[in-house]
């Protein structure tokens, strides 16, 4: 009898255990949301939009590597790469391998950012308020247009003002992917199609965005980026008018000192858009490569230091010529000295330089004469005005004002200059499509010059 009693206990124990355990197989993740939940509310769409800025500002993109790549690709002795990482070293030597991880990151994170913007655009129907909806659409399009412009500048041959630009651009993806069935295998659109996509997105953004939008993109951020694109295309009237609109209406003005434009934890009056960095989030990877270990950089002497030929652009006096510090035997730019400063993206000084150059080329004086505009920039840096300004003076002023901010290779391509012996349109100045994408997408064609 005792035995049957125990047997019964065993049996009932088993039954209880078996039934209660089966229910436990349904577990939900506690740190993650399903796509339905994530795209199901207005608040979450805003969160995804904010996430797009986070992605764009990461180290592989505007957090630093986009600028580093441009400066090193253009380098012909004005800067010195002394870092140990082989990927930037390849940029500097203009001998880039198709497995270069900085190249792959730029592409991968670029498209990740585009997808994030696409997710916002595909789910705007849950946003009820029209003004919010317009703003979100505008910001998402701003981010998408910006990324396409950046990708086509790096991964395709230069835009030629007087040609059809039918060469290979980058794939255009306009639909969001949140589940595996939505994956596309796109081929490369033409250069002209990608530029059009970027301009359309930014024009829409301009029309949708409000006049001001805290640290995020507003109407004039889109307009400023359009000015940059038009300049790259050699469309000077459009560049001039866009830059003029920003200068006249955005409310952004240059800081009183040159120094004041840099190393800011909060945006200065000059910042049209800057990538936000705090000690808690965001990263200033320009600091990583362009400052000394003492200030948070990778090496004692700074991975990137400035060489003597650069200083030839200057005549004494000029605050910008002194905006350097000594890094254990090297000259290091002060522009990226603060580890947790925001990373510059568009500052109004660039708009002045675009307007001045465009006015000069077109023989116009929209807003201000080119000479006055350039001299205003010079005066801010306590440099003497240049009387009887030439185009070369304007272009040199760009080098003095905007050096080490990521403009170098794009200016070389637009102005048809050389990098050493390499002509502006040399194959080795175009980044290869990352090998991993050539391997995963049969429709992608590699750039010439890469195996």
């Amino acid at each position, binding site marked *: 009898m005792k035995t049957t009693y125990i047997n019964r206990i065993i049996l009932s124990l088993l039954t209880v255990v078996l039934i209660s355990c089966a229910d436990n197989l349904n577990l939900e993740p506690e740190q*993650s949301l399903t796509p339905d939940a994530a795209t199901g509310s207005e608040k979450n769409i805003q969160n995804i939009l904010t996430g797009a800025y986070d992605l764009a500002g990461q180290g592989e993109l505007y957090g630093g590597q986009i600028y580093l790549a441009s400066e090193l690709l253009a380098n012909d002795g004005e800067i010195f790469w002394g870092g140990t990482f082989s990927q930037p070293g390849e940029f500097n030597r203009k001998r880039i391998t198709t497995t270069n991880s900085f190249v792959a990151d730029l592409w991968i994170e670029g498209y990740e950012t585009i997808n994030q913007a696409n997710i916002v655009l595909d789910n705007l129907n849950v946003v009820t308020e029209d003004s919010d909806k317009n703003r979100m659409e505008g910001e998402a399009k701003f981010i998408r247009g910006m990324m396409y412009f950046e990708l086509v500048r790096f991964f395709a041959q230069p835009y030629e003002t007087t040609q059809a630009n039918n060469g290979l651009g980058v794939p255009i993806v306009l639909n969001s992917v949140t589940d595996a069935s939505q994956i596309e295998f796109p081929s490369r659109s033409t250069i002209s199609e990608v530029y059009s996509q970027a301009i359309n997105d930014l024009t829409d953004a301009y029309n949708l965005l409000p006049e001001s939008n805290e640290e995020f993109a507003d109407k004039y951020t889109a307009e400023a980026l359009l000015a940059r694109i038009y300049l790259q295309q050699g469309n000077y009237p459009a560049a001039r008018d866009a830059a003029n609109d920003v200068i006249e209406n955005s409310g952004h003005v240059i800081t009183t000192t040159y120094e004041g434009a840099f190393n800011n934890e909060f945006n200065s009056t000059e910042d049209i858009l800057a990538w936000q960095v705090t000690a808690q989030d965001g990263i200033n990877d320009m600091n990583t490569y362009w400052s000394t270990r003492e200030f948070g950089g990778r090496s004692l002497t700074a991975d990137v230091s400035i060489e003597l030929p650069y200083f030839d652009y200057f005549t004494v006096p000029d605050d910008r010529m002194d905006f350097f510090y000594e890094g254990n035997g090297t000259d290091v730019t002060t522009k990226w000295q603060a580890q947790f400063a925001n990373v510059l993206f568009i500052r109004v000084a660039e708009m002045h330089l675009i307007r001045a150059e465009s006015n000069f080329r077109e023989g116009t004086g929209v807003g201000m004469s080119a000479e006055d505009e350039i001299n205003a920039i010079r005066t801010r840096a306590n440099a003497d005005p240049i009387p009887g300004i030439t185009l070369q003076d304007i272009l040199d002023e760009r080098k003095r004002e905007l050096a080490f901010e990521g403009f170098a290779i794009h200016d070389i391509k637009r102005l048809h200059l050389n990098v050493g012996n390499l002509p502006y349109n040399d194959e080795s100045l175009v980044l290869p499509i990352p090998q991993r994408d050539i391997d995963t997408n049969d429709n992608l064609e590699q750039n010439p010059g890469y195996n």
Partner: protein
Amino acid sequence: MTYLSYAQEKTINGTITDQDGLPLPGVNIQINGTHTGTQTDFDGKYSINATVGSVLIYTYIGQKTEERTVGNSSTIDITMQEDAQALDEVVIVGYGTSTKREVTDNIASVSSEDINLIPTPSVQSTLSGKAAGVQVTQVNGKAESGIKIRVRGVATISSSQEPLYVIDGVPMINSDENINDSPINPLVSLNPNDIESIEILKDASSAAIYGARGTNGVVLITTKRGKAGKTKVSINSSYGWSKPTNKRDFLNTREYVDLFTEATINSGGTEDDAAYYFNLFAENEADWRNNEVDTDWQDLALVDGSVEDFGVNVSGGSEKTQFFLSTGYNKTDAIIRGNKLERYSLRSNIDHTISNKFKVGISTGISKTKIDRLSNDNSFSTPLQAIAQLPFSKPYEDNGVVPNGSTLYYNFLFQEYNADHQVNIWRVLANLYGEYQITQSLKFRSEFGYDFNNQVEERFFGSLTESASTNGYADANAVENEKYVLNNYFSFDKTFSNIDFNAVAGMSYEDDRRRLQSVEGQEFPSDDLQTVDSAAEITGGGSSRTAYNFLSYFGRAGATIAGKYILKASLRYDGSSRFGKDERYGLFPAVSAGWIISEENFLKNNETLSLLKIRGSWGITGNAGIGNFASRSLFGGASYNERAALSPTQLGDPSLKWENTSQYDLGIDFGFFNNRISLEADYYNKNTSDLLLDQPVPSSSGFTSITQNVGELKNEGFEFVLNTKNFIKEDFFWSTSFNISTNKNEITELPGGDIISGRNIAREGETVASFYMVEFAGADPDNGDALFVRNTLNPDGTIDRSTTNEFNEASRVVSGSPFPDLIAGLSNTIRFKDFDMSFTFQGQWGASIYNDGGRFQSASADYFDNQTSDQLDRWQQPGDITDVPQARLFGANGTQQSTRYLQEADFIRLRNVTLGYTIPSEVTKKFQVERLRLYFTAFNLLTFTDYTGWDPESTADFNSNNDLAVGVDFYSAPPAQTLTLGINIDF
């Protein structure tokens, strides 16, 4: 007439000894045909009341059973003979035990004797070279370093390759909880001295009872338990001296200055330019010009270490209650500067018989492990990266205390001076069981297991370290991982005429939860205040929770017919929260059969062939080693400018299901001369389909990969185990065990095409994770340029084997495998009078290793990093034939990823040699000591290899959890070579 007769009962006394004359405690003595019996005490003495004429049966595991008829004498002393039929030894299997003789599976066993020979804190290390088909690799020389066990090759591409660890019947937590990409062996908290045996279930028929987690093999760990008899106290104490197994040659100051001056000139510079560079990193010009400083940075990084191990255990008990109590202390100072480990452990295993039907028991192990940790191999602050520093840079300031802050790279000595990185691990392993004998042949057992792994890792980097720009940095990270397991099963054992039948049926539920909290801060008022509390700025933190569980039902039935035909079948039904709703359950069957031919009449009395058995098995196992929510598309939290944000984190496939491996095994066992020589040979074939693969997708989708069931791969190979007892004389015993195994791994189907991770590739028709890179072709004799083989396709379909100095013109090719195709181990045990000796060799052949650090260490003076001495063989003038291209500072002359840095990783290692001397018991008994043994062990004494790096087995720790980035060395420290002196005392 009635005839009264009674059996004449008398008391028999005696002493039982083994063939060496040592008393045997715990020998069972039973009166034949009755349930009356006794056991010998610790001195081998016994006493039993028996009637004259009755037969006493003496049994003891490992000894031949003896029978004596009670006669006139009241003393029966017996010297038992060792039973060469070791094949009858008990083998632990999933949810039960079996005997070697009746097993139709392929199971490797390692005993406590083998385990105790290896002076390392990691229990898995002791398995190296001991089991055929099992490759055991320590990631690198760090004391807590992760350990990889690969059973019969790698059967997956993207999911876990680790076996399932089961301790005393309960699956263990085996997740590496490091915070800095330098793995911590999750089993480092186990005291190897508490382990009785380890069995590795290799084939499907043994592992399929563990279903979804059986594919990578199952490691069953059994801890020691008490035996009835006199209480036994054992003390083990040892101390060892360690040094690195290998050091490499780097340039000294003179050589460095010569080579780099040459390299500067070759790149268009002048001697003055070179001098300018040298002065940047030397305090005084004389330091490099006159050789005044010549620092050997390797000697600062790799130092002398030590291993201290102390343990006491007490075991014994009565007929009703047996116990095993143990405590242990291990202190390992690794051979890498600043790396230390200390472990305190306790174990108590108790078994109690309530009635002749009801048994209960508990096993509890508690330990605390404290580790002083290092940065991962890919950081300037890890000691071995110091070899990149220039030989004329001083390690310390002139006072010899403060490290020199003006070195080329961050000076790792600041870590010791101004930083701290410590982890504390508390582990509780408890297992309670009750066993009830329902009928004579039916038994019910219930086990409740609990495993708790609590790890707190804290770091501080002071104001002089890499965190100088933020006035210091500190973080604290706490992880709690707990698992509870409930097993309930019935066992049935019955003999029907000549059929021995056994069966097991039951269920198991397992629940695993993990919580994590972390916080980090910077801006410290003082380097003496090292916890986050003192940080002026809290810069990060987080907490997370995750869980998974398994619900399983299992059954197994086996029959041995007439002692020679063996049949077995098992079935497991597994469900897990990790899989998509529609694919949540999986079924894992297995069958096996064996035929002991030597039991047939035509062989039964064969003098030579004492055993001949053939066996075969087939089964399906699974692999569930993927993320807890891998089947789903997910969004996770992010932030921008301290505002909340959301971003997609993974793309899911709702039809994700188990990875299936179908494996068959054919084996044959021979025993010759009363099994003095035994040979096991196996062929296995493992086919894995529905691979859980991180399938790369075009990144224009916004994602880079998705976990899907695609592709198939195959492992096949042979395994041979030869055990011989060369001498079994009374005062001379010598046995040899040799194992060798082959493995051929091939991806048979990969519909999505190649998967490339860095320099490794998964490609159809090739071994998983094969090396894939451009082929290096030495230096151009004309100009010293690095040359590469084009390996491009000619229009006619042939391969262009011409060379080019343009790296981008060369195609990558499959150039080797990171996995050996042959592994072997050879162990010998010798006892001569009071001396004992054992040694083990292990070896592997066919693998390659890529030294990713070579791009900096042996880079034709491309950058200022100090170079290996072989760079002196550089090309210098036209006509020079060499593999080292011309030295060019900033010239990247052959520093791209190519086979220049790929080498064969074949090696043979003298894993351990132990010499012991036991003081004769006549002497020690005077001091109440049963046994006193002194021993000397040399661990990793010799390594024979052509690999020019530190060690052919040491690989980069920071990607050791990446299944594809295998066989890559990156400033990875060699293992320790340890010479140990120790003493065993038994009371």
